[in-house]
């Protein structure tokens, strides 16, 4: 099988304009601008079954169709914030297959009638942003961006915008605030960005990987894409595999690939040949999946993973073996969310802080049952109350960790992470 997204692994130097062009680059964009109406592009994407790769899995074409056509101008924002612990796929795409991503941005922009698009990169992607700026300049030079493209009336400019170290800016409304030059604090939704987005104008926010699918979908047709993956989750996905695994890395596989295939066939199995104890399929925001033989044979797609009491999210699969105690893990995740809570809403700001104290006490005082109960209680008390999903995310590992691995929170638990190989 050849790659759809990580095409640089098939085609050397695809990050140069010439090579990209030789391999069909920009033909999809040219086709949509010169031969298709924006609505037709949206319909094709709808028909392809493409779902957002940023985490929520929302059907991309449907999202585009919510754009309010009574208010102008429109904007497209590419979400390159990639800050979920365990996620590192967008970076590889942008570094190695930049033109396909940018062409995707361009296609989305045409589809929703945007003449300006911003690529919001996390501040740490300083080098990537510089690199993309160069690629954007090359595209402008070659007439793929700018005024009156391909002799039509359609114009488009793409700009990069660097964040500066804030996970919450991956949340789409916080990201818009950040582009507007403010603190990255999420807005109340509704109104959703499709109605009230950047500068208060209708805006589509899509993940890098989502957008990078578009040139191939438009080139090969909706059916081609829909035939990959599962009926629920069409197409291919880049799985970021990390944790206690021999060969961590990005793996582009069709939806429906099993955990076992990913971990053993592609990832080379667990370090030291230990058994898989738990899987976090969506980074630090994940619920824990208790791994057993049956679970390992389950398919990775949105619907199936939900039956396991978790979400596939951005498919950043963190593998945990039996040398690792779950209380140690949630200590890490709680600290992460406490550090990243923007502080706008009470339950998240105070709750993550409280949970941090509790998990530290638990790990210091040999797991007093009272503190473990309180931690579980505080996490549950946060749920369904926060302004944005970050607060919710911070409770997932806590609640499912304590519920699904009670033995790791018993006073007898002495297990700590062993030295890695």
């Amino acid at each position, binding site marked *: 099988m050849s790659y759809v997204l990580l095409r640089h692994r098939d085609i050397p130097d695809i990050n140069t304009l010439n090579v990209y062009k030789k391999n069909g680059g920009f033909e999809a964009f040219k086709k949509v601008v010169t031969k298709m109406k924006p609505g037709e592009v949206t319909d094709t994407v709808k028909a392809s079954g493409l779902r957002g790769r940023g985490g929520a899995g929302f059907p991309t074409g449907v999202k585009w169709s919510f754009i309010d056509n009574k208010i102008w101008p429109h904007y497209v924002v590419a979400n390159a914030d990639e800050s979920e612990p365990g996620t590192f796929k967008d970076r590889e795409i942008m570094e190695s297959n930049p033109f396909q991503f940018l062409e995707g941005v361009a296609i989305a922009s045409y589809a929703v009638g945007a003449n300006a698009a911003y690529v919001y990169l996390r*501040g740490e992607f300083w*080098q990537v942003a510089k690199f993309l700026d160069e690629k954007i300049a090359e595209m402008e030079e070659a007439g793929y961006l700018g005024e009156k493209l391909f002799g039509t009336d359609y114009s488009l400019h793409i700009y990069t915008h660097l964040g*500066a*170290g804030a996970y919450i800016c991956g949340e789409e409304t916080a990201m818009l605030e950040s582009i507007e030059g403010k603190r990255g604090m999420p807005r109340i939704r509704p109104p959703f960005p499709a109605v009230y987005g950047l500068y208060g104008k209708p805006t589509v926010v899509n993940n890098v990987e989502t957008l990078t699918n578009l040139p191939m979908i438009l080139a090969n047709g909706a059916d081609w894409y829909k035939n990959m993956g599962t009926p629920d989750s069409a197409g291919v996905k880049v799985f970021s595999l*990390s944790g206690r695994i021999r060969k961590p890395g990005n793996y582009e596989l069709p939806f429906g690939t099993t955990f076992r295939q990913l971990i053993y066939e592609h990832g080379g199995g667990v370090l030291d040949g230990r058994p898989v104890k738990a899987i976090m399929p969506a980074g*630090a925001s994940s619920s824990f999946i208790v791994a057993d033989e049956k679970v390992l044979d389950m398919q990775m797609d949105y619907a199936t993973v939900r039956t396991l009491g978790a979400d596939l999210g951005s498919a950043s699969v963190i593998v945990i073996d039996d040398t690792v105690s779950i209380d140690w893990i949630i200590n*890490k995740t709680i600290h992460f969310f406490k550090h990243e809570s*923007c502080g706008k809403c009470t339950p998240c700001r105070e709750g993550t802080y409280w949970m941090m104290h509790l998990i530290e006490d638990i790990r210091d005082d040999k797991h007093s049952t009272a503190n473990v109960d309180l931690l579980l209680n505080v996490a549950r008390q946060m749920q369904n109350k926060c302004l944005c999903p970050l607060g919710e995310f911070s409770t997932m590992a806590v609640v499912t960790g304590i519920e699904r691995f009670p033995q790791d929170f018993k006073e007898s638990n002495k297990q700590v992470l062993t030295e890695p190989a």
Partner: protein
Amino acid sequence: MSLAKKYPKEVKQILAKYPPEHKRSAVMPLLYLAQREGGYITKEAMQDIADTLEISVTDVGAVVGFYTLYHDKKEGKYRMQVCTDLPCALRGADQFMETLCANLGIKVGETTPDGLITLEAVTCLAACDKAPMFQIQSAEGIEYHEDMTVDKTMELIETLKKANVEVK
């Protein structure tokens, strides 16, 4: 000196990215530009940016305070920001950090006596498959260093030291 005087081309390019009626958007890139001076942002620089963008200096300061990659204090010339978040820690980042601290004789958050390195623990940097790893933030920008060992890191620090002596 104001940013517009010192970096006229850059400031112009930055402002051109955003609609003129929304020039406040330029605050983040301008802060990076200001940070080129010594790796941190002074109150004067904030005022300068506030004037350029016609917003209040408090609004500029509030942005500096929110984002972790902006600094309002002078610290080490190089900020060595080691990812100790979950995926990296599952691959030994905590031990890596501990050894590094021991070698440098400082604790996390501290600066080496020569003022060269400030050691910081940071959250996930999207390089989980290449742990242990860190980034170095300096006035010039940010650089990733992946698949690191303590030895390789100490070598890198030596190079940095030497380069700085030469510059001086």
